């Protein structure tokens, strides 16, 4: 029996889809059977980030409407045999699916998969309600900015109201140098405000942009963000993993870079 996890944020553009793709890839690397569901109907992106856009024949709405079987709509990942994507429809909108239908789908899928991960759309309307319907656990993604933190706070309230058992936080796109200067909130500051458990901190890393454009999530590779995502995956599995020391790595890198600059 698997677990249904929703990745949500409230605010758009904080990295929900990137996080979903990387957690899925990371868990598959740890030999878990994972299905990612893109619930952002009408504005799908997860397929592009995963590099599976060209394989889409059926989508989530087809499955829910009964036009095809779940197995037909699921796309196997390019690199990992245990990772699947259920893409969203692009020509429909959020109202094409109801929370009850999503709950049933999630309940069906978790019989077969270790993890069912829902990529939630931005906002708190129908799409959000659909995404959290079957979820047992939530991962809230935020960036260390007041606007994103405020939206995350609202989302955490809604998740509690909907009785989602476990809510954890990922602070995304942190810049250690700015934190050091006092220009950016640190992960600890964000945790203070939101009062939830921290699942991980992902540094701002240009490799993420490259990986997204390539359609190959970087979880588990040598980049700082790739390691951060891999640690997050281990924590999801229940392991205790110490947080990456972002500053030292950054310091070393900056030192090397400064040598070349001279």
């Amino acid at each position: 029996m698997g677990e249904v996890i929703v990745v949500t944020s409230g605010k758009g553009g904080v990295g929900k889809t990137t996080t979903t793709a990387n957690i899925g890839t990371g868990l598959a690397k740890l030999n878990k059977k994972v299905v990612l569901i893109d619930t952002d109907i009408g504005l799908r992106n997860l397929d592009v980030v995963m590099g599976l856009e060209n394989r889409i024949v059926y989508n989530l709405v087809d499955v829910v409407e009964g036009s095809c079987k779940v197995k037909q709509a699921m796309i196997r990942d390019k690199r990992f045999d245990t990772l699947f994507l259920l893409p969203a429809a692009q020509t429909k909108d959020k109202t094409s699916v109801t929370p009850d239908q999503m709950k049933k789908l999630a309940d069906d899928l978790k019989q077969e998969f270790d993890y069912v991960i829902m990529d939630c759309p931005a906002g708190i309307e129908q799409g959000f309600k659909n995404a959290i319907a079957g979820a047992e656990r939530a991962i809230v993604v935020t960036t260390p900015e007041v606007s994103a933190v405020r939206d995350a706070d609202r989302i955490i309230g809604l998740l509690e109201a909907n009785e989602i058992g476990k809510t954890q936080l990922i602070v995304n796109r942190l810049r250690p140098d700015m934190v050091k200067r006092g220009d950016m909130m640190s992960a600890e500051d964000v945790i203070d405000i939101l009062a939830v458990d921290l699942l991980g901190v992902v540094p701002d890393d240009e490799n993420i942009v490259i990986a997204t454009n390539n359609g190959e999530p970087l979880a588990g590779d040598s980049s700082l963000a790739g390691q951060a995502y891999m640690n997050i995956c281990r924590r999801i599995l229940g392991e205790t993993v110490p947080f990456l020391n972002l500053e030292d790595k950054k310091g070393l890198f900056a030192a090397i870079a400064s040598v070349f600059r001279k």
Partner: protein
Amino acid sequence: MGVVNLKGTSSGIILELDPKLPFDVLITEIANKFRESRSFLGKASMGIIVRGRTIIDEEENEILGAINENSDINVTCVLREDPETDKIFASYIKEEVPEVVEPAVTQEVQQETSFDEEKLIEDKNSAIIHAGNLRSGQSITYDKSVIIMGDVKPGASVNSKGSIFVLGALRGSAYAGTDGNENAFVMALEFNPLQVRIANSIAISPDSETGPKLKVRRFRKTATVKNTEVAYILNGHIVKDIYGAAFLRDNRFI
């Protein structure tokens, strides 16, 4: 209203028959009516629509005979009307033009007259022209072939029972021959689709072409020669070819 009424339209005559009377009464009345209007009708060529009762072939011949004897008009075609079509017409009229019932009837009938077999064949070989780009999330579906004067962006899709011609860049999905026609094909000036489906076959773009090449392509844009390409089914597989003389010579598509 008499048992038989004649109504003129611009290119034909509507013959209204009383549904209750026996046919031999009607046929004499038809003969009378046409005799009376002989000079009015003149020597024109026109079609005839029979309305009010369902007639069989023999009765149609008798009506034609009566018209031939009693007037100088040349009947080019006879259309029979059944009450079911009438009901459909009536429902349209109620919805759209509640006041002007009579003219609307003739108008609808004329549309029906023009919809004969020749028109059907013509439909099969003709195409819809769609002017403008199709962006992500937009999708069009037609029974005929489709010509798109613009680009099909990623995330957009074109579906047609016939073939698809993109006079622009095809970067999204195209599905030709949706009802299983394996002779359908997909052609684009810039052929770079995510997915092409023809009848029951699917072809996807190679993975290496997505993503990182975007940047490279932009740099080389002036250097690369863009070939107009076409995808069609060959031995059960979708193949891509240059849209040129060799393709056009293969007349199974044309």
